[in-house]
Each structure stands twice: as structure tokens, then as C-alpha cells.
């Protein structure tokens, strides 16, 4: 790279000296940098061609996996742990079908690397019920007929639980806005709003 590719020299920053310093080192692998004299401990890098050991805590259970670093939480759940409740709609953050809770927050598992989710508690649709009684939000989706094909439903339910706990289920308008990240191709939206309203008081009263 020469200076022509970035002609604008940022203020109070000497780009030339930065480049001079950076140019000396091998770009890759990172591990080569770690050998240099430095007082900072550099986290070790994994070899991209080899699987990496990862422990994912899902619904209260530890799962020890050997996975490619590219594996998302969604693929780890579905392909490696065998929990296929979380669905892959778009794989690009656009539909919400893959919604899970990480440390209680709703997130998209298709855009979360499994490696980044280590040491965090992941909750999926499979973790909601104790096997005897459905979670109030699951029950509400059945009572209100809040799905047709059901493909978006696990994501809707995980998202809806978080929506209620965040305090964003106070009106129909609120629910629509804060559930907009979950697309339903069957357009069961009015019934989804009704289900969220039904379950909200029970969830909030604990």
C-alpha cells in the first residue's frame, strides 16, 4: 500500500510514521507479532484451518464442541448441539427467526459467532418450558392462534419474552414497534400482538 491510496492525512497523527512502523511486521499470521518484544499479553490466535474447542452454555447445560471459527451460534445450536428450534430464515440479520437470549438479552444468533458467545448463558426456545407446563408466552401463542406455518414462531416467542421484560409491551403500537425485528411471512401479526398482550402480565408478575 502506498500513501496515494489514502491521501488524507488525519489531523494530529503522523500517518507516515505509522506506516513505517506497521510495514515492518508480517501481516499474517498474527502469532508472529506475539513473538515481538512487548509487555502486553496478546491473546493467542487459532489456526484458521483447524477446529477450535468451544464450550457453549445452552439452557443451563455446557456443550463442549470442536468447531470451525466461522460457526455462528445458530449453526452451533442446530448443526452441532442438535437444538433445531431456533430457525434460519435469512442468515443475515433481517428476519429474526434465529432470535435467542444471551444473558437474557434478545440477539440474533445468525450474526453472533459461537466463539464470541463463550462464557455466556444462551437460552433457546427449547429452554423455556420445564417439560410439564409451557412458558406463558408459548401458551399465549397457542391460545391466540399466533402462527400459521410456525417457522418464525420460536424467534417470535424468544423476542416477545424479551420485549415484555424490557417494558416495551405497554400498547399495541409499542408491541408492533418493538417486535418489528421478527418478520412473519404468514402475516400472523395481529394475533402475535394479542399473544404478547396475553402473556405480558403473567411474565411481569414473575
Amino acid at each position: 500500500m502506498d500513501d496515494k491510496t489514502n491521501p488524507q492525512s488525519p489531523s494530529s497523527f503522523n500517518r507516515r510514521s505509522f506506516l513505517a512502523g506497521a510495514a515492518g511486521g508480517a501481516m499474517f499470521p498474527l502469532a508472529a507479532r506475539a513473538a515481538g518484544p512487548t509487555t502486553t499479553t496478546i491473546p493467542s490466535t487459532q489456526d484458521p484451518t483447524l477446529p477450535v474447542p468451544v464450550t457453549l452454555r445452552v439452557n443451563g447445560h455446557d456443550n463442549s464442541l470442536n468447531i470451525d471459527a466461522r460457526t455462528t451460534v445458530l449453526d452451533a445450536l442446530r448443526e452441532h448441539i442438535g437444538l433445531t428450534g431456533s430457525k434460519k430464515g435469512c442468515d443475515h440479520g433481517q428476519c429474526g427467526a434465529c432470535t435467542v437470549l444471551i444473558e437474557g438479552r434478545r440477539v440474533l444468533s445468525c450474526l453472533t459467532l459461537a466463539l464470541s458467545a463463550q462464557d455466556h448463558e444462551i437460552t433457546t426456545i427449547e429452554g423455556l418450558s420445564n417439560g410439564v407446563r409451557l412458558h406463558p408466552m408459548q401458551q399465549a401463542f397457542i391460545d391466540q392462534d399466533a402462527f400459521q406455518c410456525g417457522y418464525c414462531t420460536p424467534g417470535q416467542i424468544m423476542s416477545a419474552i424479551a420485549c415484555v421484560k424490557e417494558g416495551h409491551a405497554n400498547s399495541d403500537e409499542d408491541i408492533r414497534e418493538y417486535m418489528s425485528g421478527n418478520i412473519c411471512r404468514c402475516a400472523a401479526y395481529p394475533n402475535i400482538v394479542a399473544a404478547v398482550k396475553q402473556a405480558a402480565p403473567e411474565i411481569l408478575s414473575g
Partner: protein
Amino acid sequence: MRSFAYQRAADPAAAIQALAAASAGNNPLTEAEIQPLAGGTTLLDLMKLDVMRPRAIVDINPLSPAWATVSLENGNLRLGAMARMADVAANPEIQQNYPVVADSLKFAASAQLRNMATLGGNVLQRTRCTYFRDISYEACNKRNPGSGCAAMDGFNRTHAVLGTSDKCIATYPGDFAQALIALDASVDITGRAGTRTIPFAELHKAPGDTPQLETTLAPGELISGFTIRGRWPRSAYLKVRDRQSYEFALASAAIALDVEDGTVRDARVALGGVATLPWRARGAEAELKGQKFDDALAERVAEIAFEGASARSHNEFKIALGKRVVARALHQAVTMEI
């Protein structure tokens, strides 16, 4: 997705060190060899599309909470780069003192994405130009410098009308950046050479002849936070989109006003969804200052904001829409109760 080496940085020093070998590659936007990973909602998306091709990823999530703090001290707002969009949008002090900041975040993306995405990553999100995102199109000067621009005579309905060049007309898609540029925020940047602070307005670059150069960040530099001086309780963010929620702006306006007895003493106007980079409409601001606010002024200001706008075959409507958004946002800011 291509394979990459993953590492986690325990603290800022480790992150800077791990990023020290970063080079821009052939194209800093897509080929940078080492990329920091924050929320991952841009990075992983574009890696799956094979648009971004880092060979190594430095996960900077361990830097929050240290870099996620939000504080309002001596009338200045400091926002850590690792703060999540949802948390900042829900902060009551920000809602009260900087509604334009809270609303620009609240009306962006979805609840899940806002829980994941960081402020630092947000301002660096890439354009949603479909030709940029789809590598089966050869012609994209941003992704593939010198290859041409498929959008120029293609489907350019969502493309920019301000700040364009004959090389690229891609819209800068973010909302939060419009609040930052309107409020004259500064950005703290840290790298191997130390830390520096620049006006937010100097972070992004217009496409010009080099649309692949989007920012003035050097390879390996990290944004650590943003500072906004003064309070802006009379401020608003209005966003108009193809659907009411979970969509990028077709046109948006970030407005901040200081109004006394119906006269505008100070004014800030920034435009989203219509420009190639975060866009401050200084001419519009100058027109507002010292004037009594009324409908005629709002219309004049909206005209000025879009002076010099140029459309392609499918995005002409953005000029008319954008003007209405500016006028409506001004009304909203003037009439809001503070």
C-alpha cells in the same frame, strides 16, 4: 465465508497490539486483513456475502464495559464506543437532554440488532447499495476500485442525491451519525501511535474518485468514544422509510434548535438517507439563525438544504421527500415540549 483467525482482546492495549499489523490491503473497506469485531452485525453479514474478507478478527467485546460507559458531566455527553445502541436509546438522561440521539438509535434496525450493535460499529456500517453487497456484480468502484458503478444506471431508488460523484452514489445508511454530526460531536480514536480526537465531521469522506476510502481512520485504529458538548433538549430525529419500522431511511433529518420567544437562536440540521456520508446542511442552519420560525421559513430552509442535489433515474423523489422531511422535522422540534 472465508476462514479467519480469531482472537479476543482482553483490554484496549491488547486490542491495539493485536491490530498493530493491520494493513489496508488493496481496499481498506473490504480487504483489510485484520478487523475488529464489535456487535458483528455489519462485519459478519458482509463476510457471509464475501464482501468483507478479513483474514483475522480481533474480538473487542471484552473492552465493554470499560468502553461502554455513558456519562453526562458538566453538560457534556460522553458515549463509549462499545455502548450498545439499545442501552443508549433507553437512557432517560439522553432521552431528555438529547432526544435526537435517543431517537436516531431507537428508530434504527430492530430491537435484537440494537442489543448487539455498538456505537463505534454503527458509525462504520457499510452502505446497503445492493450492488456493493452482491459480488456477482463486477462493477462497483467501492468494492472493486476502477470497475465502474452498476448503480449509476441500474436500480438506484435508494441511492444518494447529495455528496455523490461520478464514481459512486451509494447512500450512507446510518441514523446515529446524523445526530452526531448535527451536534458537532467529536470522536476519540486510539491506535498504536496514541490517541487523537477529531470532529465527527472529519471521520467520513465523500466518495470523490476513491469511494473505497470511506473514513480517515488508519488501519488498526479504534474508535473509543464520542463527546457532545452542551445539551440539546429541543432536538428531534425524523425518519421516513418504505415501511414504518425496521428499515433504513429513505430520507431523515436530525434537527437541534435553540429557540427563544419564537426566534431561532441556534440551529443544527443534518440529513440522512439522501447523502453519501453523514451530511450537515450548514446553509440551512444559517438561514434559520436569528429568524422568527414560521411555515415560510421552514420551506425556505428545506429548499436550501437540498440545493445542489442531483438525482439519477429512480431517486428523484428523494429530493421532494427530503425537503418535506426537513420542514416537518423543524416543526416537530419547534413545537416539542421541553
